[in-house]
């Protein structure tokens, strides 16, 4: 996530779940920890038993709240106000960790005079250009914060980040050859343009009263949270923050996480035991599918996909625009060249730029939502859907289903019939009018195949095949491998240069076992060995990414995972030896088997632990190296007193006390000077669908969020009386996606979609517990059973206005033993500008007793005339063009 990436350097959780037990206070916000990650929650319970204070901030009182010491209600979509007010409280009461802030963050860096804050510009930062047409390659780079490039125009729509840069000064070069420019700093944090003072002003109006008025959170509870966090941070104590999709699924989702990151930096909790930010991922391999991604804008290891907007037409220009002068990312060329070698083998030579031009170029945002819209407009012909069910879990799901009707073909891999695979026979569909050719390939379950999954804290774990796949089921790997073989065969005789990538792509993954081979099953181990990397000449495995080279002598399919298969015999993800803390011999944690990131920060600038109680990694004077309970996230022998070398490249530009090695300046970013499209500091904007105007600024919404203003994607609008209630969505312990809903043991536990409604609203709208209710947004309407509960509380906002929130699980769809309408049918298409994530955690809606009408051929099926479509079809960000994939 770029929220973490831009702040700390890497887009992964900063710590590991077991370490939560060492926390003295855990703030759970944007996550229903106990329900969605019950097994990891045991560490929260262990911390609680040790005396830690557990706080849960959530619109609903959930099973997590029930176990927390303090439950804090909040209006969904207002977390930046809540967290920003804590930041303000910490600053105002001088409760931040001074030494940590001074040395490990960019609080002392001084901004240029051009910078203007949202306080000065009614909710906009300087550099906003109303008519600016963005030129970026979607959210390329944004997953990895390392790509802060100074002086580069932001790719995001609307903001020119020139004025967000730091002021530089000239100092003598480290080698005495002239001068070099470095960021100007004021270690006293007093300079009025230093980040610390800018931050203070930025959040000055975020106070307890504002929290009460905007979030609906009682003042006393807010202050209790502030006190708990502050008194459990510092040298002797640490506090952790855990979040999940309750923070990401917003039009300002990335900035939610940024706010938490700033708070944790101020409190000195990052890189320390019991501290950090625990990002709780949903699916088994959601971290893995971001690291070795199936994401349009990223290549394995957070290398950006080349984009025409950045003019990355050849390898040299690509490396120039993406490699960083200072910090670890100076190594990017090695990783990119090694990746190309892994992809195209012998065909990739120095002369042909290692086949860089085999890679397709991005021409816009090709993420899920724009693709869905393009599909609706007939531009996508063929669709592979593997282990996902967009017809149920998608956004504006009926638009998505209608879009599928325009496909020529669709291939679905799953273990059960999904709503996506059978979209053509859904309620209201007429198969006789749907031309799509559909394939269902039965997929093996996790127990029926070998493979590796990366958990929420970057831990790779291997699962062995236990039983033969049922019937004709095959692993997904087998499908992809066989498809690749067939395509190579199809193009065998082609001389067209466009077909070279398919023919030159290395594809030697035959299984070691004769029996598996005869069934066409490829070797997962061989794939992982390629991801780990090897020497091209000898075929030997490299032992880690430090061995990778820029000269084509090494191949590596995913540099951050390098080290997982350090030799042909070893697969460290298979390791199953635990101890009672970091367990380095259980699985493999990227990077380099580090369990806690930025752990250099667990020691003070001189390399000594901040306290005995919070000892983790420290400088061993005698051995002259970093040591501790974990693999140090720092050059092993770089002494703490090593000065930074001005003008040097790579790690030499960092001093021995700069713990965030992926960052340009080696420091945690309170202020993010580029990369993020919606501002260097988090700012409260109301959600797209909101009941109230923004109490803080004239600017109502995120000014650069991406909207689709088209007839098949209507919005509720602000303070629309037709939609007087807030709606929030969530998942249940008992269900995941399609997988659980066919399992009778799980289906009986939560058999049907329900809506959680507070008793007052139930009385007002005559809704009885257990009865059917119909919930409506501008996009669609669905029915659910009413679950009337006092756990859902109406909130009191400014001027004594009460608002009601309705909760709706996101697990259901028409197919399965446990089934119901899909909540995705209520969510409009709108995206966060940084990561193209939609906003499903806060909506507005209306509710009535009774069941919905039978689904007719809905409005999305009425063909919009082509001319009108081209006019309406383009996604816009507040009326401005946004680079959709089709132009």
């Amino acid at each position, binding site marked *: 996530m770029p929220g973490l990436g831009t702040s700390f350097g890497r887009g992964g959780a900063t710590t590991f779940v077991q370490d939560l037990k060492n926390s003295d206070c855990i703030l759970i916000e944007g996550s229903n920890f106990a329900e969605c990650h019950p097994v990891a929650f045991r560490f929260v319970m262990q911390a609680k038993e040790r005396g830690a204070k557990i706080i849960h901030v959530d619109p609903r009182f959930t*099973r997590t709240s029930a*176990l927390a010491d303090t439950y804090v209600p909040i209006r969904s979509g207002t977390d930046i106000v809540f967290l920003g007010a804590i930041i303000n409280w910490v600053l105002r009461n001088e409760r931040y960790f001074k030494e940590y802030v001074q040395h490990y963050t960019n609080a002392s860096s001084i901004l240029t005079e051009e910078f203007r804050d949202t306080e000065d510009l009614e909710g906009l930062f300087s550099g906003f250009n109303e008519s600016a047409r963005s030129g970026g390659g979607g959210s390329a780079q944004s997953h990895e914060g390392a790509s802060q490039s100074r002086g580069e125009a932001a790719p995001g729509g609307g903001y020119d980040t020139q004025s967000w840069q730091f002021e530089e000064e000239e100092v003598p070069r480290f080698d005495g050859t002239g001068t070099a420019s470095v960021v100007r700093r004021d270690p006293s944090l007093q300079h009025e343009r230093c980040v610390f003072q800018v931050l203070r002003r930025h959040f000055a109006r975020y106070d307890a009263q504002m929290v009460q008025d905007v979030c609906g959170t009682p003042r006393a509870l807010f202050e209790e949270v502030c006190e708990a966090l502050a008194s459990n941070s510092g040298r002797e104590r640490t506090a952790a923050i855990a979040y999940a999709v309750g923070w990401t699924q917003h039009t300002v989702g990335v900035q939610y996480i940024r706010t938490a990151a700033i708070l944790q930096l101020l409190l000195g909790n990052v890189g320390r035991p019991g501290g950090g930010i625990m990002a709780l991922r949903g699916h088994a391999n959601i971290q893995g599918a971001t690291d070795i991604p199936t994401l349009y804008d990223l290549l394995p290891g957070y290398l950006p996909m080349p984009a025409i907007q950045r003019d990355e037409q050849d390898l040299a220009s690509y490396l120039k625009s993406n490699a960083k002068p200072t910090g670890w990312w100076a190594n990017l060329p090695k990783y990119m060249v090694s990746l190309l070698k892994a992809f195209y083998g012998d065909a990739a030579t120095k002369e042909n730029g290692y086949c860089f031009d085999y890679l397709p170029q991005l021409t816009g945002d090709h993420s899920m939502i724009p693709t869905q819209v393009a599909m609706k407009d007939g531009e996508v012909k063929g669709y592979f859907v593997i282990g996902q069910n967009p017809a149920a879990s998608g956004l504006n799901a009926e638009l998505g289903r209608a879009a599928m009707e325009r496909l020529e073909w669709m291939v679905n891999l799953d273990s059960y019939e999904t709503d996506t695979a059978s979209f053509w026979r859904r309620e209201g569909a007429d198969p006789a009018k749907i031309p799509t050719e559909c394939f269902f390939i039965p997929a093996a379950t996790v127990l029926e195949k070998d493979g590796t999954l990366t958990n929420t804290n970057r831990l790779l774990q291997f699962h062995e095949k236990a039983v033969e796949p049922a019937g004709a089921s095959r692993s997904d790997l087998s499908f992809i491998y066989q498809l690749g073989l067939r395509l190579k065969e199809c193009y065998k005789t082609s001389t067209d240069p466009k077909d070279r990538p398919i023919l030159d792509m290395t594809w030697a993954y035959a299984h070691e076992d004769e029996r598996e081979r005869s069934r066409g099953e490829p070797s997962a181990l061989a794939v992982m060995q390629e991801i780990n990397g090897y020497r091209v000449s000898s075929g030997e495995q490299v032992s880690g990414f430090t061995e990778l080279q820029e000269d084509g002598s090494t191949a590596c399919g995913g540099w951050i995972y390098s080290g997982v298969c350090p030799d042909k015999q070893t697969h460290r993800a298979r390791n199953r030896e635990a101890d009672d803390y970091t367990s380095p011999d259980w699985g493999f944690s990227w990077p380099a088997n580090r369990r806690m990131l930025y752990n250099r920060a667990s020691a003070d600038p001189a390399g000594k632990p901040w306290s005995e109680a919070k000892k983790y990694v420290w400088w061993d004077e005698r051995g002259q190296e970093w040591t501790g309970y974990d693999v140090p996230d720092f050059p092993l022998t770089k002494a703490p007193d090593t000065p930074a070398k001005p003008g040097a490249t790579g790690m030499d530009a960092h001093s021995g006390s700069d713990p965030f090695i992926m960052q340009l300046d080696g420091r945690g970013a309170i202020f993010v000077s580029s990369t993020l499209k919606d501002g260097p500091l988090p700012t409260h904007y109301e959600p797209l669908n909101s009941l109230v105007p923004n109490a803080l600024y004239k600017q109502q919404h995120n000014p650069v969020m991406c909207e689709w203003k088209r007839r098949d994607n209507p919005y509720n609008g602000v303070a629309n009386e037709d939609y007087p209630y807030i709606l929030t969505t969530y998942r249940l312990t008992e269900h995941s996606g399609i997988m659980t809903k066919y399992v009778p043991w799980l289906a009986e536990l939560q058999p049907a979609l329900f809506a959680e409604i507070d008793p007052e609203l139930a009385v007002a709208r005559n809704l009885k517990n257990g009865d059917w209710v119909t919930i409506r947004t501008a996009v669609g309407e669905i029915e659910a059973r009413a679950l009337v509960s006092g756990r859902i509380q109406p909130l009191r906002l400014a001027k004594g206005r009460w608002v009601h929130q309705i909760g709706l699980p996101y697990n259901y769809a028409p197919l399965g033993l446990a089934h119901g309408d899909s909540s995705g049918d209520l969510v409009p298409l709108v995206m966060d500008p940084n990561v193209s994530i939609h906003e499903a955690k806060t909506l507005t809606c209306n509710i009535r007793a009774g069941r919905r009408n039978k689904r007719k051929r809905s409005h999305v099926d009425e063909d919009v005339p082509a001319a009108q479509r081209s006019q309406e079809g383009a996604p816009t960000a507040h009326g401005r063009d946004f680079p959709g994939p089709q132009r």
Partner: protein
Amino acid sequence: MSTGFFTDTTLCIGCKACEVACKQWNELPSDGFEFTGESYDNTTELSATTWRHVSFSEKVERKPELPYPQTRWLMSSDVCKHCTHAGCLEACPTGAIIRNEFGNVYIQPDVCNGCGYCVPACPFGVVDLMQMVGGKDGDPKYNTNVLRADRMEHTAVQAIGGIAGKCTLCYDRQRSDLEPACSKACPTESIQFGDLDELRERARKRVEQLQGRQVQARLYGVDENWSVGTLGAFFLLTDAPAEYDLPERPVLPSTHQPAAYASAAVAATALFLIGSLIFTRS
């Protein structure tokens, strides 16, 4: 040595892993797919095929003197209590219900004839009857694929009649030195399995610890002088037992027998005497 469960409800997160782990290990079917509207509880009670059941109790206090509503949501995993003096065991006419070497109350499915007398003999409402299907080896098997007929094709099964079902305390696993499935699965160790003496010791300490934190904690089924004796599966509660669907003071049904037999004897004697009087007088 007697083994049992200590269920510490203060640690329960209501995830229901115990319910599922139990069903998986014991190959029990689902109980149907009905939405109840009773908080997050859709299986509603222990049954012949639900041997662990998580209850949910919501209470919201809204008082003018409180700055905000005080919500509390109690969750607790209920199970067969494995009573020291077990009503079901006493009632069972076939000897299907035995006390095994671990001190647990176990129903031998191959002996049970489904008379159902154990059902009203349980003061906790634990035991119930279920339908069985024939397994390959003639061994009774529960029908794991009870799926809703209107949505799935029914698996063809041959019902072989009813049988009483309840927690076995994973007798088979204990025999193989394994911990019961539910306690093993429980993510927060709300369910603890072990030697009862040790568990009771641990539980008493836990109560002290909680009371030290101003939590109104009490044990259920340990130090009371109940006719059912101490419970082989006991609980730590923070509210009245009724909030957890537990009787305040369970009574062993066989304690009613002396009075009942006396009543029958008096009536029989009286009727016989009157009858004799009537029949001997000419």
